[in-house]
């Protein structure tokens, strides 16, 4: 996986470029969700309980079908009229995450995109997972430029309210 900061910054740029205003926090949530659902419990079970091989239990939550079901489940914790937008934005964030993930190189492991229908592994292999940290300065700079433009032009982040 690229680090979550890279995932978050890419989602932030996606939200700003597509100009999504409503329910945008769910795209951010969706973009960290696959790793939160898989890495955190595996790490906790491995370190705290010293039980290995549990990565296979949580692996399906890092697949398109698994994340679709998870987003659907999470959606029902929102009010009825919001659910369609909640589900769409959670899925957009999660699929943005999976898209970045398949760009990576792994030896021996890869992503089961077609689980549970097939165990075929797939990845494009453009960069190693740890190399994503080199993208952070560039992505942060682009994000900072966008924020500055928005603040100056639209008064976003509260500037307009103070001036009115």
């Amino acid at each position, binding site marked *: 996986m690229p*680090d979550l900061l890279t995932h978050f910054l890419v989602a932030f740029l996606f939200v700003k470029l597509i100009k999504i205003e409503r329910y*945008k926090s769910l795209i951010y949530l969706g973009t960290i969700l696959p790793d939160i659902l898989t890495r955190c419990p595996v790490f906790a079970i491995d370190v705290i309980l010293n039980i*290995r091989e549990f990565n296979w239990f949580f692996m399906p939550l890092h697949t398109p079908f698994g994340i679709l079901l998870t987003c659907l*489940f999470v959606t029902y914790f929102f009010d009825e009229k919001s659910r369609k937008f909640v589900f769409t934005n959670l899925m957009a964030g999660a699929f943005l995450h999976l898209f970045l993930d398949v760009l990576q190189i792994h030896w021996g492991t890869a992503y089961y995109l077609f689980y549970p229908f097939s165990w075929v592994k797939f990845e494009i292999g453009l960069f190693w997972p740890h190399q994503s940290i080199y993208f952070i300065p560039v992505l942060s700079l682009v994000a900072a430029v966008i924020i500055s433009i928005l603040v100056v032009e639209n008064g976003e982040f509260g500037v307009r309210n103070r001036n009115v």
Partner: protein
Amino acid sequence: MFSNKYKIGKMVLIFLLILFLCHYGYHKGPETVGPELQDYLDNAELFDGAELVSSYSKVGEVNEGRFELMYRYGDERRKIIVIGNAEGLEEGDIVSVKSIFRKDGFLELEEIHIHKHLYLQWYASLLPIPFVILFFFKEFKFKLQRLEFERRR
């Protein structure tokens, strides 16, 4: 699909489906991966000359033309010698290795990738979590009586 009709029933059904997916992955997953290093060592004659791929293994002692690769055997940590030169390799590095297994119990290096600054990835992964929580609760509030999140006006 997203209506409140049969809401609890739909949630239970989706949860059971997720549980089934996880259960299937837990039982079927290990069968889909190839033999591990310990299997190679236990059947050395059979696997002599076969390629072995190790991902995210820790490097032990590094010497000229060889280094040690740590691997897990149950709860135990063991080492195997890898013959070959790797530029910039240091003890404690995390590496992915493609190698040829030899029946005498060592590996011949084919390709190696050193995962430099791997720990930075973990730190960078913790950073956005508070921001995501902040953005979420800036946009949504929790209605305790209905047990649902609702968008703030």
